[in-house]
C-alpha cells in the first residue's frame, strides 16, 4: 500500500489519481466534440 497505514488513505490517493485520470482521458476523447460550428458536409 505504498507504505501507507490505512486502506482509507490509500483509497483517497488512488481515488485522486483515478478521478484525475478520468478528467484527462475525458478531455482528450472529447477534445473536439461540442464545438459551435456544425460539422462540414461530406462530399
Amino acid at each position, binding site marked *: 500500500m505504498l507504505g501507507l497505514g490505512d486502506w482509507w488513505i490509500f483509497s483517497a490517493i488512488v481515488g485522486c489519481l483515478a478521478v484525475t485520470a*478520468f*478528467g484527462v482521458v475525458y478531455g482528450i476523447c472529447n477534445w473536439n466534440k461540442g464545438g459551435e460550428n456544425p460539422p462540414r458536409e461530406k462530399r
Partner: protein
Amino acid sequence: MSPELSLFGAACSMNTAVLFSLIVLYVLLIGYLGWRGWKRTRSGQDYLLAGRSVHPFVMAMSYGAAFISTSALVGFGGIAGEFGMGLMWLVFMNIAFGIVVAFLGFGRRTRSIGQNLNAQTFPEFIGKRFRSNGLKILVALIIFLFIPLYSSVVLISGARFLQEVMMIRYSWALVIFVTVVAIYVIFGGLKGVMYVDALMGSIMIFGMLTLLVLCYAKLGGIVNAHQALTDLAPLAAERLPHEFALGHRGWTVMPEFNSVWWWTLVSSLMLGVGIGALAQPQLAVRFMTVKSTRELNRAILVGSVFILCTAGSAYMVGALSNVFFFHTDKGIASGVRQLAIEAAGGNPDLIIPMFIREALPSLVLYVFSLTMLSAAISTMSSLFHVTGSSIGHDLCRGISGMRRDSLLANRIGVAFGIFVSVVFAMVLPPGFVARGTAIFFGVAAASFLPAYVAALYWKRATRIAVWSSITVGVSVSLFGLVFLHRKEAAGLGICQALFDRTELISIHPWPFVDPFVYALPLSILTLIAVSFFTPKPSEQHLRRCFQRNK
C-alpha cells in the same frame, strides 16, 4: 485558520533584492495582462463574461486558481501536517465534485441556459431562470454580505506576505496589494482577471509540483517517505495528547470514527468545502464565459490536473514534513526530536513555510513566494469581480429598474466591492475573518446549491419554492453557526450571552457537525415540497430556457 500570518518566517532567509526584482517583474506582467483585458473590453458582456469567448486553458486555469487560495495551500497543508493525510479525501472531493461534476453536470447547462436567457452574472442567472427580479436581488445581497469576509482574509494574506518580504508597514503593503489588483480588475474586467489567473495558475502548478518532487527526493522516495511517516503513528498519543483526544491516530490513517476530528474532516471539509464548491458564484460564472461545450470538455483535463498538482501536493507535503522534522537536526529543540506541529510552535500555518525554509534550496523559496502571491491574487481578484458585479450589475440595476447595462456602473460596483473588502481587512481581527470564510462556504452551499441544481435540471421548480429554499438555507445555516456549531458559536458569543452556554445542544457529535450537513437537506426538502404546492412555471419560458438542451 490564519495562514496570512505565517509566511514571514520563510521570507527571512531570502535575498530581498532578488525577490523584490522578481516581484516587480511579476507586477509588470500582471499589468500587461490587465492592459490586454482592458483593450479587449468594450461592453458589459465583455466586462462580466469576458465576451463569452475565453480559451479553454485560460478558463480552466482561472477556475482552478480562483478555487485554490493561499488558505488551501498553506492553511490546509498545515492541517495535514498536524492531522495527516485524511485531507487527501478533500482533494478527491475537489476534483470529483469541484471539477468533473461541476464541468460535466453544471457547466454545460449553465452555459447553455445562461446564453438562452442572456444572463451575465450568477444572481441574474437565478433571477432570469425563475423570472424574479427580487430573487436576483436576494442572491446578489447574500453575495455582497458574505463574500467580502472571504476576500478580506485572502487580501490580508497577500498584504502580510508583502509586508514581510518587502519589509514595509502592513498598511502600505495593503495599499500596494489592493492597488495592483484593483487596477486590473476594475479596468480589465473578467478578461483581465482570467488572463492574470491563467498566469497565476501556471505558477502555482509549477511551484507546488516542484515542492512535492523535492520533498519526496529529500525523504528517500515515495514508499520510504510514507513508511517513515506510518512508523511515527505511536507518537500521536505520546507527544500530541490534545490531537489524540480529538481522534488523531497517525498521519497515514483516518481519524477515529465518530471523533471530533473525524466529524470535522467529513462534515466540514469533505462535504462542506468539497460539495460546497459547486455553488460558489465566482466559479459558476466562469461556465458562462466559454463559447461552446467543447471548451468545457477541454477544461476538465486542465482543471483536474491543476487541483491534483496544487492542493494534492500541499497536503502530501504537509503530512510528510513530520518525517523531515523528526529525523533531521532541523526539528531538534533542546535536544528533543520534534514533530512538525511542535517545530512550528503549535501553529499549523507555519508548517509549510518552515518546511520550505529548512528543507529545500533557497531557489524554491522564490518559487514558493510567487506561488503564494499568485494563489492570493487569483482568488481575491475573482471575489472582487463577483462582488462588484453583484453590486453594479444586479443590485443597482435590479433596484433602480435600469434596463441598459453600464460599463461604468460595473466598474464602480467592483471599486465599491474592493473598498468594502479593504475596510474588513483593516478592522476585523484575522481569526474572525477566517471564520467568515467558513461561514460563507456553508451559507453559499446550503442556500444556492438546491436552487442552482433545480435551475439546471428540474423544470417543476417554482419561483416561490426557490425563494423559500434560499431563505431556509441561509436561516438554518446562520442558526447552526450562532447556536449549534461550537467553533463559530463560541467565537461569536451570542449563544453564551443569551442562554449562558456555548452551544444549545452539547450531546456529541452535534457541536462538531457542520451546519451545512442539516441546512442543505432542509433547503432541498423545502424546494421540493413548496414546488408541488405552487403553480407550475410557464411552458413557454421553460422552452426558452432549455431550448439547446433537448
